[in-house]
């Protein structure tokens, strides 16, 4: 503990000693006022300038980073949009090639149908009944006054003949109509065919129209990206965040699958590489070997999807010629199948090892072996084998979310870094401002401690200036009087 009494001039009179000490300190501080103000000012200016310098540097770096991120983001977005547009054009091309190449045949068919319909229509034209030319002859016979029953008989005969002809004509007319109806009836399928063809055409045209609209939308986005539109950039950034979240979720699910896969082969791997070998204090060689197998499967899956051009993580594979790419694809598939087969065998071995160990435990515990139903007990074994074969292929598809994760993570980290640096820059700027202002505050605070000498100084200056003014006034009045 500090012995404060050593500082006292008169230990018996503490108040007087403290007063004397205070007085001495005040005198010292007053004497050191100018250099102390200088130190305070210089220190604060140094700190302020330093923080402002760092702040400016951070803001510049963050701006550079933002621009670089923007360039990468837009380039990636442009590339993605170009791929989408390419795909849409491919679809349209397929549609045109597949459907609209049949258009001339369809047109010919429709023309034929139309011609047939027209012919049938013409055939259906109404044939009017023959005009009654014999009506005039009948009128002449009817005007004969004499002749007895001859005209009557004649008329009756004519009537009979006319009745006969009428009946014949009516029959002919009906038959003709019947034929026309038949023709019209036969036209029905042709109309239906035409209607169906028009419907199909309509559907294809609607699909084409939808594709055209989608291409228009993609083109608009593409143009906006090319124009470095802020909205497009924002949309791409948000899309990256969403992509990151989705791909991270899928990766978590895949990690679950990997864990199951690992559990399936970790025990039997100890049969291959030994159960008592350790790489580190707690890391078994067999566990690492199992993990290596799983990672190799994932790598083969990655190469398979790369060679299928589903993912594009390796530009070297994407730029390979088709023959080499196909060879790589076959090699990856073969290796993946072999690894899946190995894993399936390991799953079988796992079941056997567990069964063997269980039997030993029963033997050691002198417990009678449990009765087993052959079919029921083999279900888990078959299930494990199937799972061991299928899981590697399922894990191969992890490459898709992985690619998405890599791309989106770059954007997200870039945005986070930019924002972080910008925030830090602003904070340092504020700190610089604080230092700048605090120089004055510290100087004033220093002056408070020596307020008494300062007051004396002010009075002395005022007194001296007052005395000099009086002297000057007396001198001036004397000179005036002299003048």
């Amino acid at each position, binding site marked *: 503990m500090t012995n404060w009494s050593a500082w006292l001039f008169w230990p018996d009179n503490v108040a007087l000693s403290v007063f004397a000490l205070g007085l001495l300190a005040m005198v010292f501080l007053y004497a050191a006022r100018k250099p102390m103000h200088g130190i305070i000012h210089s220190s604060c200016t140094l700190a302020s300038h330093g923080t402002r310098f760092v702040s400016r540097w951070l803001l510049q770096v963050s701006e550079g980073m933002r621009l670089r991120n923007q360039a990468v983001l837009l380039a990636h977005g442009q590339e993605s949009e170009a791929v989408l547009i390419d795909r849409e054009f491919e679809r349209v091309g397929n549609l045109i090639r597949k459907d609209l190449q049949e258009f001339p045949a369809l047109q010919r068919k429709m023309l034929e149908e139309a011609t047939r319909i027209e012919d049938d229509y013409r055939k259906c034209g109404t044939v009017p009944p023959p005009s009654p030319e014999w009506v005039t002859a009948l009128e002449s016979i009817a005007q004969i006054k004499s002749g007895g029953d001859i005209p009557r008989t004649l008329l009756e005969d004519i009537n009979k003949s006319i009745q006969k002809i009428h009946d014949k004509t009516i029959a002919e007319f009906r038959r003709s109509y019947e034929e026309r109806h038949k023709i019209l009836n036969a036209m029905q399928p042709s109309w239906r065919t035409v209607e169906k063809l028009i419907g199909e055409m309509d559907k294809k045209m609607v699909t084409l129209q939808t594709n055209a609209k989608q291409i228009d939308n993609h083109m608009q986005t593409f143009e906006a990206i090319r124009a470095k539109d802020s909205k497009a950039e924002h949309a791409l950034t948000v899309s990256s965040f969403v992509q990151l979240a989705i791909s991270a979720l899928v990766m978590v699910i895949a990690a679950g699958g990997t864990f199951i896969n690992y559990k399936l082969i970790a025990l039997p791997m100890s049969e291959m590489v030994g*159960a008592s070998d350790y790489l580190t*204090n707690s890391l078994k060689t067999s566990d690492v070997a199992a993990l290596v197998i799983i990672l190799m499967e994932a790598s083969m899956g990655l190469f398979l999807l790369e060679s299928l051009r589903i993912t594009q993580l390796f530009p070297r594979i994407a730029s390979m010629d088709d023959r080499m790419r196909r060879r790589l694809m076959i090699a990856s598939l073969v290796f993946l199948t072999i690894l899946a087969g190995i894993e399936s065998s390991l799953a079988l071995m796992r079941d056997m090892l567990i069964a063997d*160990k269980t039997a030993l435990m029963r033997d*050691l515990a002198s417990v009678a072996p449990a009765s087993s139903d052959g079919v029921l007990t083999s279900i888990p074994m078959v299930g494990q084998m199937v799972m061991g074969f299928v899981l590697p292929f399922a894990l191969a598809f992890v490459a898709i979310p992985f690619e998405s994760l890599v791309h989106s993570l770059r954007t997200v980290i870039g945005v986070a870094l930019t924002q972080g640096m910008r925030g830090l820059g602003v904070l340092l700027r504020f700190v610089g401002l604080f230092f700048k202002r605090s120089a004055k505050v510290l100087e004033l605070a220093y002056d408070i401690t020596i307020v008494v000498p300062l007051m004396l100084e002010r009075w002395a200056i005022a007194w001296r200036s007052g005395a000099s003014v009086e002297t000057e006034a007396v001198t001036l009045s004397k000179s005036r009087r002299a003048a």
Partner: protein
Amino acid sequence: MKTHFTVVLLLFVLLFSGACGDSRMHSHGVYMLVDTSGTYAQEANKASKIINYLLATLNPGDSLAVAKVESRSFTEKDIVAKVTFDKRPSQATSQKRAFKEKIQTFTQAVKPSAYTDITGALIQGAEYLNETNSGIKTIVIFSDMQEELGKGTVRDFPIDLDGFRIVALNVSKLRTDNADPRLYLNRLARWEARVRKAGATEWVVVNDLENNLESILVTRGTNG
């Protein structure tokens, strides 16, 4: 390319810098002494159960030996069965079955010995376990811990049990202990002092064979 290689090499070194290299350092070595002197020979069935527990608990790569404590036990002839389990689990299981058969044969034909040379058996056990290079070395003594040496048997010299765990199992109370429990307590204290002086890292007494068998073996990682 050279830079990539250096980075990969560095990562590899970092990953495996903690590797021991010697797999034996992670293995258990257990040497079990079964007292066959006097009436304690009747406890052989209990010893058989303990051995079964050890067989069920030990892993591939571990070592196990069972020896009987007789009048003079510093000899390999007293080792009933010994095995270092294969690294492959399937082979280890077969070895465990064979070991169990040997122990069964032994327990069916135990002959009581006149004296009890625990010290000699301890020295023999320490020798065996040192040869196995096990990472964790445990000597299990299934005995009443009452040493009785025959004429001409010299055991009053310092022994070396550096790094060993000593587990005394089923230390039954003798008739004299019942009369004066201090004899029992002093006997245990004397043995503890002796093995600790010899460098043993741990001294454990397990009498509750139904519920406290886990104390016989330590799990990996807890032993230093």
